[in-house]
């Protein structure tokens, strides 16, 4: 991983950046989020009292060395993991207080995912894959396919709508994944290493796409990345190490190495 300036250990006092006071909830608000795995002697603390606020309308990059807790943090933010302590609000809704179906429903309606490994369903065509979030919401198949087709056009891959994932290149698959992540117009987009499996030019294209389509005033985007080539696309950078936030940078000139 390329260094961005220098990494410093987290200060004792938590680092909190206040959301802009414009009456809109922060896209993400984490309060003293802690996560432990295992029990008794085998207990490992992965996150240590994370406090974080990310405003809407921005792409936030979450960077740090492997094992620093980035994936655990976004899993908790996305409601895929429960924290051991603390709370997470997504656009004002306390996701950590939600239980079972309520959390699943909230996630389905409000959060979109772009995975490193794409995770497209191999038996479904590009347009069918992109339609899945709408089908989960209960849309009729015909309408879901039509909306997904529009989304595929928007990401520049409409001509491949009937191709299976194994007939698409890595970049094309990631575009389908982005279309799938955005088709149901989620308020929060969570991207885990979206460019890791792509070359420089394709990674550039994917991030440009994300910036163009996903970054909206009433939406938030958080991208976990090791890829220093895409640092310039972020509006803010959150650096982590050893389960703590080191610093939050908002000046792009400080992002790139």
């Amino acid at each position, binding site marked *: 991983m390329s260094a961005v300036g220098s990494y410093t250990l987290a200060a004792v006092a938590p680092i909190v950046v206040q959301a802009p006071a414009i009456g809109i909830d922060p896209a993400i608000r984490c309060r003293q989020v802690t996560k432990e795995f295992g029990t008794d002697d085998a207990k490992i603390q992965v996150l240590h009292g994370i406090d974080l606020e990310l405003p809407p309308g921005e792409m936030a990059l979450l960077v740090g060395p492997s094992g620093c807790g980035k994936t655990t943090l976004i899993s908790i933010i996305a409601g*895929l*993991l429960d924290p051991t302590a603390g709370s997470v609000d997504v656009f004002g809704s306390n996701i950590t207080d939600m239980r079972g179906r309520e959390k699943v429903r909230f996630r389905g309606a409000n959060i979109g995912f772009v995975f*490193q*490994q794409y995770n497209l369903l191999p038996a479904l065509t590009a347009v069918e894959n992109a339609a899945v*979030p709408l089908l989960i919401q209960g849309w009729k198949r015909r309408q879901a396919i039509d909306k997904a087709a529009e989304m595929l056009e928007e990401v520049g891959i409409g001509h491949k709508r009937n191709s299976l994932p194994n007939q698409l290149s890595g970049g094309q698959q990631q575009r389908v994944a982005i279309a799938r992540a955005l088709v149901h117009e989620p308020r929060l987009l969570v991207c885990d290493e979206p460019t890791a499996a792509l070359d420089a030019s394709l990674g550039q294209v994917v991030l440009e796409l994300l910036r163009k389509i996903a970054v909206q005033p009433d939406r938030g985007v958080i991208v976990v990345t090791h890829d220093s080539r895409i640092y310039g696309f972020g509006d803010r950078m959150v650096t982590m190490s050893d389960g703590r936030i080191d610093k939050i940078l908002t000046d792009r000139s400080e992002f790139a190495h």
Partner: protein
Amino acid sequence: MNWVALKMLLGDRTKYLGIIFGIAFATLLMGQQISIFVGILGRTASQITDVRDADIWVMDSNTRFIDEAPPLPETDLQRVRGVPGVDWAVRLYKGQVTARLESGQYRSTILFGLDDNSLVGAPRTMIAGSIDDLKQPDAVIVDKAGYEYMWPGEPIKIGRTFEMNDRRARLVGVCKVSPPFTTLPVLYTRYSQAQWFVPHNRNLMTYILAKPQAGHSAEDVCKAIDERCNGEQRRLTALTEKQFRWKTIRYFLSSTGIPVNFGITISLGFIVGLAIAGQTFYLFTVENLRQFGALKAMGVHNARILAMIFLQALVVGTIGYGIGMGLTAGFFEATSHVTHLAGLGMRIEIMIGVGMAILSIVLASSVVSARRVLLLEPAVVFRT
């Protein structure tokens, strides 16, 4: 999402066909073997079922099954006739006799000696000749399968002669009856004629066939016969046709290797089907774990995932069952013209029973697979 579940299933053609093969194989094996088992058991008592005129069989108390009945003295016939509630009672001989054909060959046969006057117990379906022709001297009627056994490849010809116990027997008819368990020719003659065909015994009468009077149930008349005809020592037993049929079947179930043999094959069919379907379905689910994880992350709750997996299992189960049942039916259809396999076929109860077994295979396979998915943490999709 049902449509997504089916597309996921159909997208992996190898596993999809593998599961269907496993289910179809299990269905074929179980359906065919259970049908043959039921058919063979039915044959053990088919000669009881074929006697439609009488509702009551009276026999020596030591009788274990229809083919093993100690003979009764003639006086027992009068005693049974004297029991209140008995409308009529006639004698019946049943035994095994060796026939010597014109060619000099010998054939073991089953011989029925029917009451001379009433011919109670006579076959209902004649292919050639007439039942009344039994009143002719030396007259014998043989069943169709028996005719083919005694004169293989030859067309039916009435008037053939052969010998039993050095007495001439003349074929006056060919009939159609339920195949017996031992697949020997079944011969019918008059009781008085049977006395000549059978080696000399002190007593000839094997069974007494009786009918209850109107207004009397067969069970009540059986009890009356038991009470009236037995002294301190129980010597006679009266059973309804149904009771005697099940007594015979129970004998074969408990005293022969038939149930063990078929039971092993049927169990193997079930186990193999479960193994193939279960393992393939489990592999299919495991290989799609990331995709299931992605679906969970995207908002599909566990109940819906479970429904998707059950739907997949039910679809392959139904297709496999249909193919297996079709193959089983095809087997019995293809062999229906084979005389010695006559009467063996599938019944609706067997289809339902095999369907239940397949359903349990399908449910077991999907539960084992679903468990893995239900316990899956959606966050796994973030791990490479």
